């Protein structure tokens, strides 16, 4: 199984959302990292055939997905951003509906039971979706995406609005399902993919600015991340001149972490970069 994104460009009127994006998607978790408006959802909507690109194509096993849409979608699982689903449906009814949409004529109760158990929703199977919390909705979203046992799983901002406990739970869930399939996880939250992604694609203003393993991305900016211990009066010039990744205050002393090409202060110490700092370095901003 191979997916190749070849020179995709997408324009909305005069605004260019994606600009000549080319990528190869392999097995494992691939993090699609970008700020809001970077073009992540547009790329995902093109991948799930909900939008047509202005130029370029997506190739599945060497063939354009528009030429064999049905066959491609049968191998695809997709979880949209901030799903609300149908308030009047129970979790079980909703999965049956998605199974019907996916053309699965004989979706056994067993399969639905397994998935509900997998996402820890067995006890809520008869509960109306309207009564679900954000975390439950996201887990149901994963369950519906896995119904057809897809080769490609696409998750769009899956942890948006979740509390830390649910985010950890969700990350573990994604890690579990990533074996023998391609999981593309789009997010602007670095922690979502920091520990589980095999590869990270950095998207900035519609262009791919980096695509590599987390370690390689961190090594790339080695020697460009610094820690400076500064008094309050010295802080202002540092903040205005450099990209700050973290400030920690201890009494009147500030411990400032920053990203810059050259040593920002005589007392600055080079430290090991984190993925957040990679994002900050390339995209110029970070969401914590």
């Amino acid at each position, binding site marked *: 199984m191979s997916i190749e994104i070849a020179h995709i460009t997408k324009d909305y009127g005069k605004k260019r959302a994606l600009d000549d994006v080319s990528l190869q998607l392999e097995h494992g978790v691939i993090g699609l990292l970008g700020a809001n408006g970077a*073009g992540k*959802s547009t790329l995902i909507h093109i991948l799930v055939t909900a939008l047509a690109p202005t130029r370029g194509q997506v190739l599945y096993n060497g063939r354009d997905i528009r030429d064999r849409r049905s066959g491609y979608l049968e191998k695809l699982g997709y979880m*949209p951003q901030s*799903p609300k689903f149908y308030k*009047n449906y129970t979790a079980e009814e909703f999965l049956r509906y998605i199974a*019907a*949409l*996916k053309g699965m004529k004989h979706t056994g109760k067993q399969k639905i039971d397994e998935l509900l158990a997998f996402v820890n929703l067995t006890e809520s199977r008869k509960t109306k979706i309207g009564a679900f919390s954000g975390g439950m909705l996201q887990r149901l979203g994963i369950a519906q995406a896995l119904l057809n046992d897809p080769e490609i799983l696409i998750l769009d901002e899956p942890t948006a609005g979740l509390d830390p406990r649910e985010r950890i739970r969700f990350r573990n869930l994604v890690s579990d399902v990533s074996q023998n399939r391609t999981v593309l996880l789009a997010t602007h939250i670095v922690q979502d993919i920091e520990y589980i992604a095999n590869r990270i694609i950095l998207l900035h203003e519609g262009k791919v600015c980096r695509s590599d393993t987390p370690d390689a991305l961190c090594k790339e900016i080695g020697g460009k991340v610094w820690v400076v211990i500064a008094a309050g009066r010295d802080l202002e010039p540092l903040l205005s001149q450099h990209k700050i990744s973290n400030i920690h205050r201890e009494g009147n002393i500030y411990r400032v972490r920053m990203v810059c090409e050259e040593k920002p202060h005589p007392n600055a110490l080079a430290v090991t970069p984190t993925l957040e700092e990679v994002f900050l370095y390339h995209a110029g901003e970070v969401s914590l």
Partner: protein
Amino acid sequence: MKQLFAHEMKKIFSNRLFLFLLLFLLFVDGLYIYKTYDAYRDPYNKDASEAQWEIYKTVEGEITAEKVNALTAMIARLEADNAESGSGLDPSMVGDNAGETESGYYYSAFWDLTVARNLFDKLSDAYYYSRDMEALLTENEALLALYRGKGNTALVKQAELIAESYSGRAITAYYDTETYGSYFAYDFSSFLILLLVFLLTAALYAGETESGMRYLLRSTPGGRLRLVAAKQCAMAVSVTVICLLFFVCDFLMFLWCVRLRGGGNPLYSIAAFSETPLHLSIGGFALLLAALKWMGFLCFGQIGCLFSSLFDKSFLVFTADLLLCFALMLMSTYSGGILESLNLFNPLQLLIGREMFYTFRVVNLFGTPVFRYTVCLGCCIGLWLLLLGATAALNNAGMMRRRRSA
């Protein structure tokens, strides 16, 4: 496909607000008919009505010489009574002799006389209907000869159609069919059904965007044409169910309030339809009118579906539906010129379809006169198919308004 259809039906009918409104509006409809048409609420009217029915019973059914003679004799007797008492116009003087009056119900012989004369006039109209039609046909025959002489093919065809439509007509039985006239002219339920149809269709496609499901649906193998087909079938079935509920409610309420009589009589036995070109019984016409209305509601449902595919918010769809409906209402009030032709595509014409059947109204289609209702029905079916195609294309090809993605 069956499963998707079942799910679409569930989405519609599991909406508690929709169900509540459906039941509430049915109740409002029934109450409106009761308040407007029930003569029994007023004791004065109750007696009057009962008196009329007592006399009416003597002439109802097949028109025979005996019935005509009996009614004529009754009128003569009542005229004599009135001449003696001379008090017919003063209801305050005649309260004690109700038992002595002809109907046995009302206060005075004068009322009975009025009712009897009224019945006689109607009976006479029914009896002489065939004679009036023959006169019309004779006149038409002369015109036909004139048109032939002038070589006006279109008018010749029209006159031939008149001859074909109005020949062999007779009313052989008398019933008080005017109550059916009121039933056919009742439009309030159409307004309520329209509201429900707009409410139903507003969320059909836009609701998927509101629940964050649109892209998910489009990413499934069955999320396009199959889903559109399921939604369209669900819309059609739901509109049919709503129509049936209201049609049955209307019929039962009218049956209860105004005693619908003579459903087997020809349509032209109702005064308003005396010149109708249709050869149908009143019952048959009621079914035809229901079918036309159903088609009209389907058209409006399809308009709602199209708007629902274009907008992301249900309330915007509902508002657009209402605005368009008002525009069509305004349009339907105009006649003549281009609007007359455009009104052929106005589905509102099907909801007030009875007006197309009052008189002989034809549209000249390439030199051939075709009844206006036939053309209007054809145009609305064409419009419906066009809207259906546009809705399917919008939802299948992803031509809906493209939103900027994050």
